[in-house]
């Protein structure tokens, strides 16, 4: 062997650095380092983060071949791996439910797995093997398109902080008990759920993301929530079911989240909040709420407008407001109840901190215009209002003329009118 005049630059770095470098590499390249030199022969085998995708096998047109290669690659990598595995991620559309995956999960459950992310092909839903529920050290669990059925003996993931279920089929009550049996849960994402009735009880929850059809959601005891983002779809059935229900959705959903900092609602969320008994003056002040985003607000529905007003008037530290309209222009044009904007109740409300307002999909119907006027009149530090119309309107000019007339509490307020 010839002595190299330059010393080896990298091999003698501390193992922690070598592992860090190997972890940044795609796993196939990390495994490849085993032929570099004797010092590198087994360096990769102790990395604690294993991230697999279809790049682990060279792609070709034969799906079965790719699948076979992927399975072999992963099985062998796991066999050769030494020590704990903290993260296992498998995202590929080439793999579907198969015995190998069940075995990998069993294997991982014995390796103190902390983070597990599984996203498999779409055609067949993957049934999660019950051994998953033995992964006691799980901190983060992210599952896509699968079926989850906690066994009766399941006592909860005591360390779990982040749970994301995308298109995961779980029975309503099982979802509820899964959530409440993770005492440390901080982040919860549920998407594409189907007519779910959900009572969220998670004392440490800070981040909540929901998307899908929900029959009923109640945030019961999650007082630490900081961020809520909801995209809610609604069928006629659900709507009727809700109308008949008792109680007030607004209070059920937002009645117990005093620390909320950011609220985002899409599609029917505002409508959802507007359903139920009028809460009257809500007892809660959202002192920390700084950003409110409500999309597809129907300004012709006074109940939705009330939801909007109730929210912003109870958020003294609001900084940024983003609203999009979805008004049925014809119905909204003949607005009644315009008097209430002059009403005592809201007239002396001041938005001390509001700086940015962004309105999109605006069609210039009376309640929209009144709302903009209300904001301009009562926001002394406002810096920018941007207004984007939903379509080319003949009334655009008259809308502009009207806008120009509005009094502005803030001398610095700039109105940006965005043409469609």
């Amino acid at each position, binding site marked *: *062997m010839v002595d*190299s005049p*330059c*010393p*080896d*630059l*990298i*091999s003698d*770095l*501390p193992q*922690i*650095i070598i592992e*860090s*470098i*190997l972890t*940044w*590499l*795609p796993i*196939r*390249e990390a*495994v*490849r*380092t*085993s*032929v*570099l*030199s*004797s*010092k*590198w*022969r*087994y*360096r990769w085998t*102790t990395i604690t983060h294993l991230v697999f995708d279809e790049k*682990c*096998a*060279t792609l*070709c047109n034969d799906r079965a*071949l790719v699948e*076979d*290669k992927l399975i*072999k*690659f992963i099985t*062998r*990598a796991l*066999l*050769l791996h*030494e*020590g704990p595995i903290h993260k296992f991620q498998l995202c590929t559309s080439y793999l579907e439910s198969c015995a190998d995956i069940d075995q990998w999960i069993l294997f991982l459950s014995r390796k103190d797995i902390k983070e597990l992310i599984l996203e498999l092909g779409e055609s067949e839903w993957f049934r999660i093997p019950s051994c998953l529920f033995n992964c006691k050290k799980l901190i983060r669990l992210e599952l896509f398109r699968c079926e989850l059925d906690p066994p009766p003996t399941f006592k909860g993931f005591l360390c779990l902080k982040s749970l994301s279920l995308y298109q995961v089929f779980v029975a309503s009550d099982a979802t509820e008990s899964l959530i409440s049996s993770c005492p440390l849960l901080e982040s919860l994402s549920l998407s594409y759920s189907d007519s779910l009735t959900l009572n969220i009880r998670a004392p440490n929850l800070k981040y909540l993301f929901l998307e899908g059809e929900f029959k009923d959601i109640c945030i019961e005891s999650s007082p630490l929530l900081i961020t809520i983002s909801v995209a809610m779809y609604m069928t006629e059935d659900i709507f009727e079911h809700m109308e008949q229900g008792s109680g007030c959705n607004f209070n059920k959903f937002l009645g117990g989240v005093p620390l909320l900092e950011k609220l985002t609602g899409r599609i029917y969320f505002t409508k959802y909040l507007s359903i139920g008994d009028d809460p009257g003056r809500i007892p809660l002040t959202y002192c920390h709420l700084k950003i409110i985003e409500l999309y597809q607000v129907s300004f012709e529905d006074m109940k939705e407008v009330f939801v909007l007003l109730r929210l912003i008037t109870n958020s003294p530290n609001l900084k940024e407001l983003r609203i999009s309209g979805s008004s049925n222009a014809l119905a909204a044009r003949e607005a009644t109840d315009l008097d209430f904007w002059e009403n005592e109740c809201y007239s002396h409300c001041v938005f001390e901190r509001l700086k940015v307002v962004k309105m999109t999909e605006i069609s210039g119907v009376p309640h929209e215009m009144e709302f903009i006027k209300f904001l301009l009149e009562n926001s002394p530090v406002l810096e920018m209002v941007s207004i984007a119309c939903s379509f080319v309107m003949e009334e655009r000019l008259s809308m502009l003329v009207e806008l120009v007339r509005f009094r502005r509490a803030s001398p610095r307020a700039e109105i940006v009118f965005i043409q469609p």
Partner: protein
Amino acid sequence: MSEVDMAVIKPEMMKSYIWLQTADGSIQQVEQEVAMFCPMICHEIIQKGMGSSKNYAISLPQRVNPSMLSLILDYCRFHQVPGRSNKERKSFDEKFIRMDTKRLCELTSAADSLQLKPLVDLTSRALARIIEGKTPEEIREIFHLPDDLTEEEKLEPLKNSTDDPRIRLLNRLYARKRKELKEREKLKNVETEEERVDDRSVEDLLSFINGGNGDAKGIKAPKSKKKNRRRKDHQKNASADESIESPEKGSNDLDFLCLGAEVDDKLQPHSGETSKLLNMEDETFSPKVEFEDGDIDDEIDPALKEKIDREVEDFARRLNSDWPERMQEILSLGQESRPVNGNGSLRRYASMLTFPSLLKVSPCSSAAEDVLFA
């Protein structure tokens, strides 16, 4: 002394300074808020009350030399300022890591010893980017890694996972080469046992298969055992024994990961006449010898060996008709030269076995491991 120190500090009373000493003995004064960005220094100041004067300078780890320290302080000086946007930080980082690989390695090491995790992440990510997409040869060159794996280790047979006849043939070729290597090694062993090149790596593999835990520990432990066994082998005067076979299996596993997926792909698109011919050959051959696992029967019977040789030559001749000239040369070289001794021929064998690059000429094709990753 402390008065002198005070005098030095006085003009800059607005900011507090601390003293740092690098391993070469030089001491320097640094803004405290900047230095505190390193958890190791922060710990020294808060927990041990160090750094307040020249006499109590914080002595930094060996790995932090003055030039690395000034780099690291630049990094800290930028990042400790609150209110910078992510974009600003990112573009600073990007420029910051523009340096030669040697310095980058040193910086990673120095940052690690100061427990400066964000910088360790940044630099190790940059190193990963250097490695990514390179051939093992290129990587070795960049980092000055010794090419100390034996040819045998690099030539471990490909797993015939897809039942591709060409891979079987490839394995057969490997088998021959491995056998020859082994024979030569034996010869060498008789001369000087210490010079065995692959001693350690076989140990590696053994410990690996036996479930040895950890590289360093696992390797050292069984070493003596192996030595003993080797001596026994010599007494028995047996040729390649069964005990060598198991390490090979283990390494097959390992290498399959790097090889299998890629090599059989490489071969995949070339399914023309050659493949058909090979197929025919294969059928006559495979029932007798099982090469499925790439395991080589070292006590191959002479008649069969001759047959392999014939076939390999045959195969080579046929392929020569449409392979590039250079490859023909290499191949014929391999066919002719039956090495007696010496390391020089090893290399040639390696190049002879650059199979995928023969089938599909790739730009880099001199060393055996290109088979793995070409």
